[in-house]
């Protein structure tokens, strides 16, 4: 999995906005074909970190290196489209370059949203919208997918399916994935490496390593213990009812 040069490398990245330190000495690498998940509490700077990785904001200090001509597929956290904007899913996807129905349909089939091809974007359910956004990110056949909270606005069952879909896409396409997640439990089964962020990197490594790390346990408290049952499960058993119990408890906490 490890190649000579990573797709993306950040070295000692700082971000300061009006004397407030938003990110501090972040160093990370995304290798070809791996899934890296960034977790952390609200306001930890997860989305900001992604935006720096994408080159949307320059860091105050440090270095961001992307492999030359790296094609990135981006899935934003939210889409604010005015209700007056007449836009079908097909047109939305066509905007990234593929004009023909026959190019777009297989892509929607890949993400399991073929039936919404002619629907208006504003009428989609949370899960459908996330799938369509994922399809848009895939259109240019990227080597790196950058996903900002890909499962938000989706019910627990749907969240598991989406994480499975993402890991399946990685297997089939061989692209790397860098994603941000709010969720601690479900995402662990779908990721190679986890990076625990709270303005600085608290800990990182495989899900097993991170979930046993003192910094992780301290940051997430009792929530963290619950998911031990999840990630050690066989991938075949992801839809086990354990998960649902955990997540329901998590929702109660919010």
């Amino acid at each position, binding site marked *: 999995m490890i190649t000579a040069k990573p797709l993306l490398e950040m070295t000692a990245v700082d971000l300061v906005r009006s004397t407030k330190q938003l990110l501090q000495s972040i160093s990370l690498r995304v290798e070809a074909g791996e899934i890296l998940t960034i977790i952390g509490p609200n306001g930890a700077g997860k989305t900001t970190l992604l935006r720096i990785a994408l080159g949307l904001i320059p860091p105050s200090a440090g270095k961001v290196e992307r492999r030359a001509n790296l094609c990135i597929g981006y899935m934003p956290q939210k889409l604010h489209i005015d209700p007056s904007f007449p836009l079908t899913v097909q047109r939305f996807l066509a*905007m990234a370059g593929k004009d023909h129905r026959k190019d777009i349909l297989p892509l929607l089939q890949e993400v399991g949203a073929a039936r919404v091809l002619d629907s208006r974007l504003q009428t989609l359910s949370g899960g459908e919208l996330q799938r369509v956004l994922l399809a848009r990110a895939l259109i240019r056949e990227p080597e790196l997918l950058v996903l900002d909270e890909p499962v938000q606005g989706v019910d627990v069952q749907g969240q598991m399916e989406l994480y499975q879909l993402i890991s399946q896409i990685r297997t089939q396409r061989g692209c790397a994935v860098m994603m941000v997640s709010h969720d601690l439990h479900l995402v662990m089964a779908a990721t190679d490496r986890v990076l625990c962020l709270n303005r600085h990197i608290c800990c990182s490594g495989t899900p097993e390593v991170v979930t046993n790390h003192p910094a992780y346990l301290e940051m997430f408290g009792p929530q963290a213990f619950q998911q031990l049952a999840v990630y050690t499960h066989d991938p075949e058993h992801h839809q086990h009812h354990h998960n649902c119990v955990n997540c329901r408890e998590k929702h109660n906490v919010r």
Partner: protein
Amino acid sequence: MFADFLLRALLGGCGVALIAGPFGSFVVWRRLAYFGDTLAHSALLGVALGFLLHINLTFGVLIICQLLALLLFLGQRQHQLANDTLLGILSHGALSLGLVSLAFMETVRVDLMAYLFGDILAIGITDLLWIFIGGGVALAGLLWLWRPLLAITIHEDLARVEGIAVDRINWIFLSLIALSVAVMMKVVGLLLVTALLIIPAATARRFAQTPETMAALAGLLGCLAVVGGLYGSFTWDTPAGPSIVVSACLLFVLSFLVPSAAARRG
């Protein structure tokens, strides 16, 4: 007798409506109504500039509108003031500054009402040329930017990641709106320019399936409003500019009697 001035009014009015349709659609989609207002309000300052420099008044308006578009573009990139606060300052500041500077020019007698509410019945050949050449340039520019502008309207960052030069296109777009606002001034006046941008587009929205049909339909509805407004103005001797806006509003209200495109599709 179908007087020449009436023909010119119809031509100018419909020309302006056809420009306003596509631009107005973007103003609605991107929620730029206040932007349009601010640009329009600065026009009076342009009129003053025109008198001061002895240049064509529309040209003066154009210069000031372009300056303001640049200022607004730069203002979007700062984070000290909320956008609508900044717009409020610029909008009312420019309008008042325009009024004050005109008051200083003692030798100049200005028909203020004509600038505030338009003077479509006094449209001359020069004005028509402004509308068709200036408006044509603005529309051609919009057509040229159409695809990237739609992408930016949906999601700026997504467009940026996909390689669109978002900042440059946004600036050109603002500059094109400024151009269209400057040529629309004569017909509905600076206080009502935004109305002609927004109301037909808001009416068209319910019947359009694609962005393109909405833009075109907004243009046609605008023409209908111009014809209706001019007719009303003649019949009841009402001011032409406001009559056009009233007729656009009537069309908007009436449109709710027709089932929308979405409802028809079931």
